């Protein structure tokens, strides 16, 4: 909380370009802090299950290449797209890029200190945020009004959203293959969530866990 300075009463700051850099710093710092929590306590990573699983695969010894490449490419794409469309996508750039890709890159290189220490994690995130914010503002200065392409951002967003929809059915299938009671729990949970217009992935997980309490998987 001490990082927040709200005494600045000037209207200018909140709409300014350097204000943007400050906001990116705060958010990136918090997200990197979240990855620190995940690294140390296995909780609190600011991303979807599928993306966090990439990092987890690396932590379990499966190599950080996939996470680093996936996060890095998303960061790259979003930083180019952000200034062109006027909205930086925080999901791809900060949550996946700064939260998963860069930590994977660091861990892959054996550089664990920024993830082990909380203050260092916040600082690392803030520095990364400052760099990203500054790059976006400078791209904006040089290219805006000169080019009218979104570089296929709409296509990628469409594909990204479509991918998320697959997770629900995949969880039910996985639960069914784990054990019969857990599978039944996942099916019922998914159906109930669907009936109440909620994403079925959440219902499937809760249903599977509930049945897992009474009928543990060997």
């Amino acid at each position, binding site marked *: 909380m001490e990082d*927040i300075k709200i005494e600045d009463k000037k209207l200018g700051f*909140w709409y300014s370009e350097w204000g943007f850099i400050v906001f990116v710093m705060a958010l990136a710092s918090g997200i990197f802090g979240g990855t620190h929590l995940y690294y140390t306590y296995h909780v609190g990573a600011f991303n979807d299950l599928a993306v966090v699983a990439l990092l987890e695969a690396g932590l379990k010894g499966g190599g950080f290449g996939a996470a680093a490449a996936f996060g890095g490419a998303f960061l790259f794409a979003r930083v180019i797209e952000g200034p062109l469309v006027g909205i930086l996508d925080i999901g791809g750039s900060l949550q996946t890029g700064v939260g998963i890709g860069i930590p994977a890159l660091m861990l892959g290189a054996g550089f664990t200190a920024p993830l082990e220490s909380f203050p260092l994690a916040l600082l690392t995130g803030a520095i990364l945020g400052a760099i990203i914010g500054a790059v976006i503002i400078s791209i904006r200065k040089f290219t805006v009004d000169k080019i009218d392409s979104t570089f296929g951002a709409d*296509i990628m967003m469409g594909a990204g959203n479509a991918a998320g929809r697959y997770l629900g059915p995949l969880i039910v299938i996985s639960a069914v293959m784990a054990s019969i009671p857990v599978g039944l729990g996942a099916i019922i949970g998914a159906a109930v969530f669907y009936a109440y217009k909620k994403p079925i992935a*959440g219902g499937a997980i809760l249903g599977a866990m509930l049945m897992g309490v009474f009928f543990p998987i060997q």
Partner: protein
Amino acid sequence: MTIVIILKSIIIGALVGFGVGAGAARMFHAPTVQAMGAFRTLGELNACQGDPISHFSFGLGFLFNSWATVIGAGALTQDVEHRIIPNWATALLLTKNRNVKETLHDPKKMAVAGAIVGVILIPLLNSTAAAVPQSLQNVATKVLVPAANWLINPVMPIIFWLAALDAGKRTGIWGTILGGLAHLIMGNAVPGIVLGILIGKGVDDSGWNKITKTLVTTVILLFVLSGFFRGFDVALLKSMNIGIPQWLINLHKFFGMVVK
């Protein structure tokens, strides 16, 4: 341990909420003002604009999903920043003043409201997740990890690949080549396909100019470097039964990699 998680989560929640709130309010002034958030967040905020109950219940709907995933696998989901914080911050402001121009569109008020929501929400989610017994987490891991692995490979590569093919001949060709190479070199096709779409659409919309040429050069460099550092060159030569030249072994050794 739980106390430490709560304290750290309070700081993280404040930072994240502050940034998300300000970024979301600035979206209503984009593209003249550089904002951050997501197009879907903007659309959803517009969809329930002006009604605090709608904003609150929209966020609540996603809370359960985030809660389930954080308990199961420690992942908060992107919805916390895309949906819950922006909508709850808006709901908080709207209970006092129904005028969206003075609330939702004001970066300063949204930053403060976002930080308040973050300070409460993040510790709540993280501490309850940490308190869940180990046996329950085991069930979740056994179910979730295979599902997530299938999603990463092959579901996501296929979805992105098909999207690239459907978006036109140029994105299709670039997506196929870079996607295939990325799967070989990086282990997953998605980053390659994303870059292929970026190049294909960039050239479709604006031709071969300085920006698109720089983009292609950077992408080629990215592939060459990640191929080298992951030892793809050595693996390629080995699988073709070609001897590895001593200079290449020395070059890898120089960067700290031992070639067997």
